[in-house]
């Protein structure tokens, strides 16, 4: 099922658009001169978050609604179909994560940094993927019904993820920890802090996906 969905996604020319958008935002990000790798990766993950979510939405929307119904019967359960869709959605972000990791070195946008920068960069990008999958799923046609509503969910989610994550906001847990993760890699935080941020991202994702699965009960 995942293979079929990815094949359909790759066949659509619209799948190229988020990648071009990723290239554009990364070019802007690294166009102003060199930065520390860890710091740059933190910003890269923040700006790529809406791109990830957009890719997930496109993947889920490429499949016609009736084909989704056929997939439910072929897989034997609504739950399995839902999980397969989310996993396929997560898979679409791999190339963009790779782009976010490699591009800054290719264009000389980062300076050689301490040894942990690459690992931290990968972590800060990967931590953005599960919440992006959840946001993309909520913006998908099965839930949002119309293209306008889907775009609104996507844009609002992306903006709130940044605004609610600003330092000093009283309830930062309302947003995925993109800003906290970026601050963490910028300030060399401790391992327990990293684990806490990871748990926060997964918990936020689980809460949103719980809502997604409840809504999908009535909108198969």
């Amino acid at each position: 099922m995942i293979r079929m969905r990815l094949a359909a996604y790759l066949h659509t020319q619209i799948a190229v658009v988020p990648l071009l958008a990723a290239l554009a935002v990364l070019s802007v990000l690294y166009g102003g001169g060199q930065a520390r790798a860890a710091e740059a990766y933190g910003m890269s993950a923040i700006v790529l978050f809406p791109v990830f979510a957009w890719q997930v939405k496109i993947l889920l929307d490429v499949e016609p609604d009736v084909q989704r119904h056929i997939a439910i019967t072929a897989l034997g359960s609504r739950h399995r179909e839902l999980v397969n869709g989310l996993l396929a959605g997560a898979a679409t972000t791999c190339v963009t994560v790779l782009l976010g990791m490699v591009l800054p070195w290719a264009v000389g946008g980062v300076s050689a940094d301490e040894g942990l920068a690459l690992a931290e960069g990968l972590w800060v990008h990967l931590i953005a993927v599960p919440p992006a999958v959840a946001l993309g799923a909520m913006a998908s046609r099965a839930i949002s019904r119309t293209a306008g509503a889907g775009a609104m969910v996507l844009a609002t989610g992306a903006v709130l993820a940044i605004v609610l994550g600003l330092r000093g906001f009283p309830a930062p847990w309302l947003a995925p920890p993109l800003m906290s993760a970026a601050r963490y890699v910028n300030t060399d935080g401790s391992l327990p802090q990293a684990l806490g941020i990871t748990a926060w991202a997964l918990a936020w994702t689980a809460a949103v996906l719980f809502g997604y699965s409840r809504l999908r009960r009535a909108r198969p």
Partner: protein
Amino acid sequence: MRLDGLWIRYGRRAPWVLRSVSATLAPGEVAVVHGRNGAGKSTLLSAVAGIRACDKGTVADRPAIVGWVPERFPAAQPFTALAYLRHMAAIRRAPSTAIDEWVERLHLTPFLHTKLGELSKGSAQKVGLAQALLVRPGLLVLDEPWEGLDAQTRAAVSGIIAEVTDEGGIVLVSDHRGETVKLPHAVVWTVHDGSLLVGEGTPHKAVIEIAVDPMQADDVAKRLRADGHDVVAVRR
């Protein structure tokens, strides 16, 4: 398979589409679902197939393998017929011979390398039928399966239904064209006003297809109705 008090509606404040629907289907049984447009036939079928969750009630003892044939096959997919069937066979873990069998039986060979979106409605519908049969279903649900099919394939559908039931499978089929007169021993389910009326036996009607000059179609339909006949459809 038991339908125990199914209630379904499309929104918290929306009216109930199905209300306390209960019925039983034994292995080898066929149920034909009748009802006017918008009565809830497709909703009932999708709930029985496991596609739609019920607000209340359960479908108990649903067979593990379900074949679903939608009213309109979703042709807006970037696959050829063969690539699509290969994907579906992989998902259903069907044996490699299954595609060949159904391609041959449904006369799909000339269209194997045609993109789904370029298939005629009838050929696309055959692909939809084939994907549901790649693994012999314990429950086959067909939503208006005869739409767009040629006479040869319409006859074949009746045979396929008989094969499934002969092997102990359950078949649920909605029909507004009266084609189910070709299904002897089918139980008739009528969806009316959110409720399900279960009646035994084949509908006591035969369907005659008459070809007339398109200009006279309305007059002929009017005359037949005046004579007390049920005009199922007028196609131009």
